[in-house]
Each structure stands twice: as C-alpha cells, then as structure tokens.
C-alpha cells in the first residue's frame, strides 16, 4: 500500500526493522480509517442500524418473522392501525408490517446484487483502462461516456422493459447501468498509481500485469470501491421504487417497498395511509443509515483527513 510504503520508508532509518514491520499493520490506511470511523458516533450508530435491518431481513427470509405475510385474508381488508397490525392491513387483508419486513429482503437483495454487479464491472473496466491506457482506455472511456449520456430514467426502464419485470432483471438493469462513476474514479486512480515505486518494485521482482493490477494496485484504490458500493446500494433501492411505479419493477406477488408505495397512490383517497407510512419509514431507516454510514466511511477513508 502506498500509505504503508511511505510510512515504512520514513520510519526505517530511525527504527529497527522489526519495529517497523510490527507497526506496519496498525499504521495502514485501513487501521487509520477504522480508528477514525470509531470516533464518529453517527457512523457507528448507523452501522448497527444496518446490521439490525440485515438481521430482521434474515429472520424474515428464513421464515421466523411473519411467515404468513403473503397469505391473503379478505375478511380483514383495509383495517386501521391496531396492536395486532401496527400499520393496518392492505387490500388483501395482509398485515402491512409483515409485508414491510419482508420488503427488507427484497430491498437488500436488490441493493446487494445490483451494487456488486456494478462494482465488479466498474472496477475491472476502470482498472484495465487506467493500467493499460492507449486504445483499451479509449474504448472503455467511449463505453462509459455512451452509457452515461443516456439519462437513467430512460436507460433503466428501457433495459427492464427489454428484460421483462422481476427481481433478477431489476438488479441486472441497475447493475449494468450504474458502474460508470466507479469505472471513472478507479481509472483515474490507476493512472496515478501505475508508475509509483511500489508497482515498479513489484514489476522488478517479476510480477505480471494481472498480479500488479489485482494484487498491488487494486488494494490501494479499494477505498473507492467501499464508498461506491454504499452509494450504489442506496441508489438501487430507490430505483426499485420508481421501476415498480412504472410497472417494471419486481413481480407484484413479491413484497417490496416500491410496490407498497405504488399501491398507496390508489389508497390515499380512501384515505388509507398504511402502505405509504410503513414503506416510507422502513426505507427511510435503511437508506438514511446507509447514507450516514457512507458519509462517515468516506471521511474515515479520505487520506486528507488523516491526523485530524
């Protein structure tokens, strides 16, 4: 790591080699970041909220929480808020809280899969473009400028439109279209890093291109990946809502916050607030925690913030 390399080379003359080696881990970019992150109370709290969401989502997914959230019960349609149903019941008499809880599973899977896909595409293309430069770089830049030129409100619906609706297609569509920023940032970092001493050193001991890209430079630009992953996660969940409204989102039989908000547009006139309130609150909690977590993460990973 460049950070480590700098520290090591500057401490080497004054300290014994052993001491330098042992301080190596703790002075790394990651340890610094972790230390800074732990000081940020908002960041730590939001991290635990995200964990709570994941836990509740897992419980719902394995069927411990609200196993019968999908079972209709016509006799109880549109009941108001009560202890048994804190957000009431929907048009089919299903408990809205249960649907919102199951919506966590849908939201997290879309966020996770879409941002993983876009991260992999962005990292690989950005790394290859920045490392090799020349014609390959030109091609990658052309590709991402092209994708970036089409507004997402047109590109993603068009893509889901072609792929058809459904959970998997939503994450493919979002993943295939949201890698541009990652690729652009990673490309820039690779340009800066590829001629640094540590890469030269790796070259001198016989590391090939693949080893230099993935083994040496990539770990040094991985902080970008972390932040981009979080941003992509949030964006994917928000896009799912809009796609559901356009009728291009997940299958209507699945529980999703987007579908609940979409249902709400016809229910407000009744007036029935259950779906809108539940979906908005659940989304708000998860996305706000993720936004705050990202913000804390970005500050913690920013080398400029070191020693501040």
């Amino acid at each position, binding site marked *: 790591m460049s950070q480590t390399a700098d520290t090591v080379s500057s401490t080497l003359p004054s300290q014994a080699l052993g001491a330098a080696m042992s301080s190596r881990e703790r002075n790394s970019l990651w340890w610094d970041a972790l230390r800074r992150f732990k000081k940020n109370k908002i960041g730590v709290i939001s991290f635990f909220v995200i964990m709570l969401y994941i836990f509740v989502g897992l419980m719902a997914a394995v069927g411990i929480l609200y196993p019968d959230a999908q079972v209709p019960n016509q006799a109880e349609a549109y009941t108001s808020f009560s202890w048994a149903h804190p957000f009431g019941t929907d048009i089919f008499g299903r408990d809205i809280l249960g649907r919102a809880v199951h919506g966590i599973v849908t939201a997290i899977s879309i966020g996770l899969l879409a941002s993983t896909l876009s991260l992999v595409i962005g990292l690989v293309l950005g790394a290859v473009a920045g490392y090799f430069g020349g014609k390959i770089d030109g091609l990658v830049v052309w590709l991402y400028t092209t994708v*970036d030129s089409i507004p997402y409100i047109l590109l993603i619906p*068009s893509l889901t439109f072609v792929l058809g609706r459904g959970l998997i297609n939503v994450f493919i569509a979002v993943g295939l279209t949201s890698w541009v920023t990652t690729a652009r940032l990673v490309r820039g970092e690779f340009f800066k890093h590829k001629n640094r001493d540590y890469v030269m050193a790796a070259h001198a001991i016989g590391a090939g291109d693949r080893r230099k890209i993935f083994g040496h430079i990539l770990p040094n630009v991985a902080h970008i990946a972390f932040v981009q992953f979080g941003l992509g996660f949030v964006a994917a969940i928000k896009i799912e809502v809009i796609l559901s409204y356009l009728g291009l989102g997940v299958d209507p039989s699945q529980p999703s916050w987007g579908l609940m908000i979409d249902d709400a547009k016809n229910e407000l006139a009744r007036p029935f607030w259950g779906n809108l309130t539940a979906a908005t609150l659940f989304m708000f909690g998860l996305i706000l925690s993720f936004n705050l977590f990202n913000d804390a993460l970005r500050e913690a990973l920013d080398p400029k913030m070191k020693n501040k």
Partner: protein
Amino acid sequence: MIPILIGVTLLTFMLFNVFGGDPARRFAGKHATPEQVQTIRAELGLDRSLPEQYLFFVKQIVTVDYGRSWASKQLISTMISDGLGATLSLTAPAFFASIFFCIMLALFSVYGRGTILDRGTVVVCLALLSISSLVYILGLQYLLAFQGGIFPISGWDPSWTGRWEYLTLPWIILFVLSLGPNILIYRTVIMDEAFQDYVRTARAKGLAERHIFAKHILKNAMIPIITVIVIEMPFLITGSVLIENFFGIPGLGGTLIKALNDSDFPTIKAFTVISALVYMMFNLLADVLYSVVDPRVKLG
C-alpha cells in the same frame, strides 16, 4: 462527440431492435395472425437486414425525422416540440430557484463548518435524500391539493398566463426534491475552496471572515459551481418525468411514460437519442465555459 453519438445509437438500436424481442409482434398485439405480423413487419421496415435498419435509424436522427409514434400515430418531432414548452415551464423556475437557494445555504453551512448548524444541514440533507421521490409527490399532492385544497390536484391550461395555477405545487415539489442533492454538492464544492491557500492569505492580511466568503471563496467556487449547473441542465428536460405523470402536465415526461406503457418503441428511441444529445451538448458547453471562466484551463 461523434463516436459517443454512434455509441448511443448503437446501444439504443441493439436494445430495442436486437434484444427486445420482435417489435412487430409487440406492436401487433397478442391476438394477431402470423400474416398480420408479417404485414406490420414490412410496414415498419423490420423485414430488412439489421445493418439496413440501423442505417435507417441513423438517417432518422440526422434528418431530425423520427417518424410516427406507434401508439398515437402522431409525428414524434411534433410530440416533442409540443411537450417541450410544458416541461420547461415546470422545470426551469424550480431549477433556478433551487440553485440560488442551495448555493446560499451551502455557503452559510461552510461558513459555520464544524458547528452543529453545518452538521445538522448535512444530516437533514441526507434525511431528505432517504425518502423516495414518489413519496414526496404522493404525500404533498395528497396533503396540499387533495386534503388541503390549496392547489388543484391536477390539470393544465395551455395558455402561458393560466398555467401557473397548476404549476405552483409541482414547482414546490421539484424544489423540495432538489434540496438534498444540491445543497450537498454545493457544500462540497465550496468546502474545497475554503481550504485553499488564497483563503489563508486573505485571512493573514486581516480580512473579515464574512468578506472572505462573500468575495474570495464564492467567486472562486463559481468556477466548479457553473460546471455543476451546466452538467445538470439536461435535468430541465428529464427531471420531471414522474411529476408530469402525477399532475397530468402534457410535457415530455408524461409522453415518455405513456410511450413506456404502450411499448411505443420509436418514441422511446427518439427520446433516448435526443436526451443523450442534449446531455452531450451541455457537457461540451461545460468544458467550453470552464476554459472561459478559468484561464488556467486550456482546451485542446
């Protein structure tokens, strides 16, 4: 610019003509006989080879003749020029009002950096960003129009003087929607300037902090701010798709959603290419402006 345009047309073409299934079958509907599908295919020029179809598509773009919508049979170029006025009268006032307001707020936020006020601004912005735009539209439309009766629920007046009554609530919603992202981005940009050497110099020679912000930082921050604004300009056309749909405003967004619902391929394709063109033009403009405002930047 030309290679990107080729990329956009190729991507759009591949999406709809190659991967999108048989457009003729979609167009003909579920119950069409094979002969009917064949006739439609010939009518739409889909029986020709893919390269030929692509060249035809490119020719449409170059000659600004996008043909007719499959759904309404209207000329697509007419649909676009009709919708443009409505869309701009919705987006432009909110867009510029929001820019002015958000730059001011961001400036104050940076001025009080490290204080609870600045921290609070960031958290509030992130909170605003954590609610789906659909919820803002639904909620505000319900509260202020349906329940409160302050504004009409939806509707449109074709005359320029009569439409403001229908536009006020959509303006408010667009303005609210833009607060979170705008304040955050301008805050970042201004914060970057606040740590530059010239600021320290200004402080060292004893200038008042307020003076430094109003004269030095704001002036220098205008360079990146203008770039941000210009790059966001395409929002004027694509930013109000959902709102137009909710309020029945006959703009481009409403047309687009209708086209998506109707599987109206030519209209969607035309919209995609045109918005990409607009995006590219504003990016180019941003580069040019950048070199005009900042003498250090040379285009070349």
